[in-house]
């Protein structure tokens, strides 16, 4: 009979490997859904403010400034999501830590690496999610958009 450390056990045991892969797949789906949510939010934001965007163009905003506005809003939305997500994760991890059956199998900690990773993902999601809305917004013709109902 071989005695294994918990960490060693979790690395070699196939069910844990499947669990890990599943976690990555779920994470990837969450990333995709997050990106789509940001895109959806920003598309709605642009479509409901077409006249407003026309006004800022008439007042001298360049296409670059309009794009900056859209990407900036998207980053702000993602930053809020990231803060909320980190808060929920920290709470969830605390709960897991309190479950005796999981003791030793998982390491419920939220370190700098995880926070930086979440930040990087939030920025990437925000920028990718805002690409189409920004492209749409900068292509608006101010005179036409001003007549938009």
């Amino acid at each position: 009979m071989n005695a294994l450390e918990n960490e060693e056990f979790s690395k070699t045991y196939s069910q844990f490997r499947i669990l890990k892969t599943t976690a990555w797949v779920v994470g990837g789906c969450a990333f995709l859904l997050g990106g789509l949510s940001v895109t959806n939010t920003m598309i709605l934001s642009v479509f409901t403010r077409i006249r407003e965007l026309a006004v800022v163009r008439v007042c001298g905003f360049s296409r670059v400034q309009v794009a900056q506005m859209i990407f900036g809003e998207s980053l702000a939305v993602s930053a809020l999501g990231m803060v909320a997500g980190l808060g929920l994760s920290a709470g969830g991890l605390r709960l897991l830590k309190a479950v005796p059956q999981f003791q030793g199998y998982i390491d419920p900690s939220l370190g700098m690496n995880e926070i930086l990773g979440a930040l990087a993902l939030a920025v990437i999601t925000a920028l990718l999610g805002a690409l189409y809305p920004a492209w749409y917004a900068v292509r608006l013709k101010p005179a036409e958009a001003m007549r938009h109902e």
Partner: protein
Amino acid sequence: MSEPLSEFAMQPMISVKDVWKSFDRGRIEVLKGVDLTVQTGEVLALCGISGCGKSTLLNVIGGLEIAERGVVEVDGRPRLGEKERLQLLRHEVGFVFQLHQLVPGLTLEENCLIPAVATRMPRKQARARVKELADATGIGGRLDRRVRELSGGERQRAALVRALLNDPPVLLADEPTGALDEQNRERIFDLLLDLARSFRKTLVIATHDLDLAGRCDRVVRMKDGRMVVNE
């Protein structure tokens, strides 16, 4: 013509030569060879029924639409590229529309500051300029109000402040009193004329109100995309 042209009206500020513009891939011709010259400091009324091309002409002069043929010059320079049109919108023309076109979620002051954000004018200077213009238009005490809290006349005054913020030499007003009641119509029109004359602006007003147009230095009538009377 209520007031004579002043001594600074010496050179053309706006020059439009044989300008053509159509929409819907050429199916709707709106401007058909328009020629127009507006002197520096002149107040010109552009009259005609709806659909005659007044608004399109203003948009072409202000760089919001691009003419398919012809030459448009503001302050002696044609505006062909994106960069030149941006320069035009930021520093040389201010637009006032029939509907105030203020952003509903912002305060009156924030709305008036939009052109200053575009030109990256220092905030302190921009706020001082807004205050000065707001006082001149009679809305100095309402700057912290949201758009929904303002009357139609106050909204249009705010639109005037916004148009004047970057001190453009040209003001283009598209039916600026069209959405106002009679009393406010007179007041806003008078204010527009006073501001243009006191700040030495070249003003082009598109209107179908001949009474109001009669107060301008010159009246130009348009019909079916062409100039018909220049008086």
